[in-house]
């Protein structure tokens, strides 16, 4: 009996140690973002108090970089790409799952090639295309590229889920005279878990991407949070107050949202990926 008790303790110990390792850099950054420069260096682990508390870094940030605008850009791109991706993918998935027609397998295969091929490798062509379409330095090009990147996996997950839906429901609707478009619309609520999975898997890589904002939309008006932070951090490398403030501003909203939605997010990622 004692051996078992020791084992449980050991498991907790290992997990606590690793959890501390996971949180340590994040906590250290947030803790020091609110302290004056002297204290950051002399007492990095101390909590900010009345004497050492300062918002100096955040003021530098405010006067040199437009973070609220970057947030809005990231939000527009992420939400836009996810919405477009779910709409287009669910339509295609419905067609592949519902109808048997000659090109069905071929189109399914064509779309699934993109699951394993990173879209970054087409960057040379994408930049040329963006120039031809005059979409460089717009949020549209980011939305479209992320949509294209997400379609293969989304179609795959959604169509395999749609194939499991009972036929009777749809046939009943057909007898009642519903159009095929109406039937598609009626199946959407039934595949909500699969849509949740796809959203959970796709959301974070889009929000966090540096590559495409850097290459396709580096202009001040279209900077995303990650690109804006990256540029700012490069300029203010030695201003610890400013750098820590920028990191905090990028970390805190993401972590708060994550803790609120972690159950759904983690369930979505695992159930979708195990498929």
């Amino acid at each position, binding site marked *: 009996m004692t051996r078992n008790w020791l084992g449980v303790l050991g498991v907790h110990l290992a997990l606590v140690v690793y959890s501390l390792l996971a949180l340590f850099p994040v906590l250290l950054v947030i803790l020091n973002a609110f302290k004056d420069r002297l204290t950051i260096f002399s007492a*990095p682990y101390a909590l900010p108090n009345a004497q050492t508390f300062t918002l100096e870094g955040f003021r530098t940030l405010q006067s040199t970089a437009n973070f609220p605008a970057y947030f809005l850009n990231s939000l527009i791109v992420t939400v836009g790409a996810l919405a477009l991706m779910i709409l287009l993918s669910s339509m295609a998935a419905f067609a592949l799952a519902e109808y048997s027609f000659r090109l069905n397998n071929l189109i399914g295969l064509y779309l699934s090639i993109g699951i394993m091929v990173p879209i970054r490798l087409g960057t*040379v*062509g994408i930049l040329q295309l963006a120039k031809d379409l005059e979409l460089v330095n717009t949020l549209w090009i980011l939305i479209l590229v992320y949509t*294209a990147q997400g379609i293969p996996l989304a179609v795959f997950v959604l169509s395999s889920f749609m194939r499991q839906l009972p036929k009777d429901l749809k046939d009943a609707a057909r007898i009642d005279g519903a159009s095929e478009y109406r039937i598609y619309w009626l199946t959407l609520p039934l595949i909500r878990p699969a849509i949740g999975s796809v959203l959970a898997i796709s959301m974070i890589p889009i929000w966090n991407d540096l590559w495409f904002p850097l290459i396709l939309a580096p202009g001040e008006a279209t900077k995303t949070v990650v690109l804006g932070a990256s540029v700012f951090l490069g300029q203010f490398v030695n201003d*610890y107050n400013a750098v820590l403030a920028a*990191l905090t501003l990028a970390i805190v909203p993401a972590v708060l949202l994550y803790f609120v939605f972690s159950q759904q997010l983690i369930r979505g990622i695992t159930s979708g990926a195990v498929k």
Partner: protein
Amino acid sequence: MKRRPFPWHIVVFLAPAVFVYTLFMVYPLVGSLALSLQNKTQSGVEVFVGLQNYLALFTSENWAQPFWNAFWNNVEFFAYHMLIQNPVGLFLAVLLASRIRGAWLYRTVIFTPTILSVVIVGFAWKLILNPAWGISQGILDLLGLGHLNQPWLGLESTALPTLSLISVWQNIGIPMMLFLAALIRIPDELIEAARVDGAGAWTVFWRIQLPLILPTAGIVAVLTFVGNFNAFDLIYATQGALAGPNFASDILGTFFFRTFFGYQLQPGDPYMGATVAGVMLLIILSGVLVYLFAWQRRLQNIQF
């Protein structure tokens, strides 16, 4: 017999997705591959050169050294993930699957770095490892290893291992979650039966859990492979496009970026950039094919 009308609704359902996917993914990829088979003559005319760009990349004086440097660095980067990230991720998953109290909290906390941007995480570590702040010195002093402290990201010998470990630290949540999902699906009776027969945790892991999660191990390996040979953000955010010191942390993603866009006095070269992307595509596709054919087939042999 009346002929059925053409099923226009199928076209309406499929066309938008196929169009966006083709225009923004397939067409640029194919175009990029085509570009890798071309080059400009002295007079500025585009000509078809076959595989000459690839040959130049692998063997010529100017290209071969940086290319192979980036390639072998990338192999090393991948090795760290396979040897540390995935085994430790599996270990954490096994601990979490042991029905311990508070498992969801540990799981949530350990996954936190994975949701953060690589740029943010990379820079936070850069600060922590910076000798000017002295955090790493303080921690090593605490462990009595103060004399071992070095400017980890600034030395040629330690930059790549350090960056690999930062990447491992950040991404470990992914194998952990995938392994955990697979472990949870193992029926309890199986493990209980083994326990009754006197098997310890170690035996249960090697004889029951590991064989049953082998398919997940394959998925984790191929995801790691694709992710690593396509990586860029972390190196760019912490070391810049030059992947310093002296290209010691250069991997294929940063090499591709520099080749395409140019750096310092070197102008960008779309033809060679497309060629580097072509090589990366070949590497990634061969990894995926090895997984699909070798690994999947072996598993089938084991099962039947």
